[in-house]
């Protein structure tokens, strides 16, 4: 297969799924004629028409609620939030409704929907267009949560999400859309399994989404000075593959968690706790967390850059962890 972008991989996943399953519809602000703010759904309205690709008003609560209702009654909606930051307007529909309906109704009614959104820093979007809010969703029982870092995962995770019976929050990263790669059909992992992207014996680096790439870059640099990182890409946060994490940490004895979301009560906290719980006797050092700073994201590019982990900081933190 030829090189495609992360964006294209997502689009192909949507297209193929929609061809197979006529109950799938897409809805969101400017997903149709505009082609999506980040171009994921570009051109799809030509193939699938206005009945299946629905441009919506700017009504986050209403459109997520509409997606929930259509999922309850037989469709499989994919709703795109232009920025994950806007989920705050739809939080009730996501976390009080979609996540709890199966449970509250005693298992009678399913909500097979996918809520796509993109998050993260990198475009000077400032405080309301740059957040990483996956911890909120991870803290909400009833939601599944995929957060792909690679072209292959963008494709396979989205295709799989579109087969599930529960609401899936599908989080993309605004800086990954132009990432290029091949869809690797041979070694695709199953949903809920973490990927060990790099073998290493000195420490385990656990991460996901855009930080995977920074971690891999840092690992290369670390290898040059003789430190071998084992890099794990979680791929999904629910299910969370603690087994893969902990069998690695048991081997390496050291763990560094890297996330873009802000540190306090973030995903890095859960990962740190899970590692400590799963590998306590094996830990030579405390599990370290290199996460986003506990600040709103500033617009200034120089400050924005310093608000989240960089390759250099992963590198230097790993050196500290190895006491080198």
């Amino acid at each position, binding site marked *: 297969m030829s090189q495609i972008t992360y964006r294209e991989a997502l689009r192909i996943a949507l297209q193929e799924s929609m061809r197979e399953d006529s109950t799938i519809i897409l809805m969101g602000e400017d997903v149709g004629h505009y082609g999506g703010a980040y171009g994921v759904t570009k051109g799809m309205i030509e193939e699938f028409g206005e009945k299946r690709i629905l441009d919506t008003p700017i009504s986050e609560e209403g459109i997520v609620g509409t997606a929930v*209702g259509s999922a309850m009654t037989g469709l499989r909606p994919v709703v795109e939030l232009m920025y994950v930051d806007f989920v705050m307007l739809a939080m009730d529909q996501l976390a009080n409704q979609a996540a709890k309906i199966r449970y509250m109704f005693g298992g009678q009614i399913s909500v097979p929907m996918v809520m796509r959104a993109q998050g993260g820093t990198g475009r000077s979007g400032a405080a309301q267009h740059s957040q990483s809010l996956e911890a909120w969703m991870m803290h909400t029982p009833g939601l599944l949560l995929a957060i792909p870092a690679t072209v292959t995962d963008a494709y396979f995770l989205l295709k799989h999400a579109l087969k599930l019976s529960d609401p899936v929050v599908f989080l993309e990263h605004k800086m990954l859309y132009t990432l290029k790669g091949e869809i690797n059909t041979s070694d695709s992992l199953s949903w809920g399994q973490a990927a060990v992207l790099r073998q290493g014996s000195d420490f385990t680096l656990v991460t996901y989404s855009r930080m995977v790439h920074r971690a891999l870059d840092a690992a290369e640099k670390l290898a040059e000075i003789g430190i071998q990182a084992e890099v794990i890409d979680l791929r999904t946060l629910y299910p969370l593959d603690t087994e893969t994490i902990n069998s690695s940490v048991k081997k390496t004895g050291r763990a560094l968690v890297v996330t873009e979301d802000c540190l306090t009560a973030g995903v890095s906290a859960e990962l740190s706790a899970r590692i400590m719980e*799963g590998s306590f006797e094996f830990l030579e050092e405390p599990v370290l967390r290199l996460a986003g700073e506990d600040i709103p994201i500033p617009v200034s590019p120089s400050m924005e850059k310093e608000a989240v982990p960089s390759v250099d900081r992963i590198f230097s933190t790993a050196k500290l962890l190895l006491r080198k």
Partner: protein
Amino acid sequence: MDTKTQTMIRMYTQMLRIRTFEERVGELFLKGGTAGSMLHLSIGEESAAVGVGEVMNSGDGFTTHHRGHGIFLARGADPKRMMAEIGGKEDGYCRGKGGSMHIADNDLGHLGANAIVGGGISHVVGAGLTYQYLGKEQVAVAFFGDGAMQQGGLYESMNLAALWKLPVMFVCINNEYGMGTRLDRASASLEFAKRAETFGLNGLEVDGLDVCRVLQDAQELMDGVRNGTPAFLKVDCYRFHGHARKDKSHYREEEEEHKGREKDPIAHLENQLVKNKLVTTEELERIKSQIDNEMDEAMEYALNSSEPETMQRFQDVYAPESPEPLPVDERILQALNDPLS
């Protein structure tokens, strides 16, 4: 008996079933048989449930609010299983997970009571979208209180329904209060039907005293709904009792309550039936005692139903294809046994 009389008697029976059911819920609460006290009785509002319910077809979807027992009964609910759910019992519609505020039944089109004011409204927009997309003849109806008129999500929903010409009806049951706040202290303007029209819907307002008028207006709007013009109906009534079981309504005058309770759709219809000799007193007595029996049985059923197994709390968080949440105790054991595992 002509069809009209049949309809009137059916509606009378349904309204009385609802009222009796609600009274039994009150009793069940006093007997300690309910799961908590967050129980909102729809006494006084029966005409909204029955008048609108009457123009719905089997297969039509609907959502309700926290005061939705009556609506579900009007749409065919089994009072036994409702009562059991209100008790948080195994035999309830949601197997004791939802309770009064979250009763649902997929088979009867009940897409759920909702404990978030306004929370279920957009779900009918989604249901309407499904029906339209799949080319089904069904419609979807959202029932909610006057309090939800102040929730922004309602207007997003109205606009979406009108924009996409979905088979959706919005029914506001105006019982004059949102908890302790009278509607005129919550809403600057009371022109709700006109407001709905500015969102592109057909809108009507009807006095809930007369279920036949509710039926008539609901039918008029429903004809439009089935032809692509979503609609809004406000039914004016009065909340006879407190907001929830423990509320004594100290914030309203007795005189007002007294007057409000005169707005009784059941008494009104009974009067009409009797005055016009459409029903005999014997027939009325027969209906009443049948209903009493039915609802007594429902209460008994609830009291006798067993508590769910506590381990069931981990079920239905996800479909079986996904892992069940790991109990905290198991996590702790794993953490402590880690070197062995």
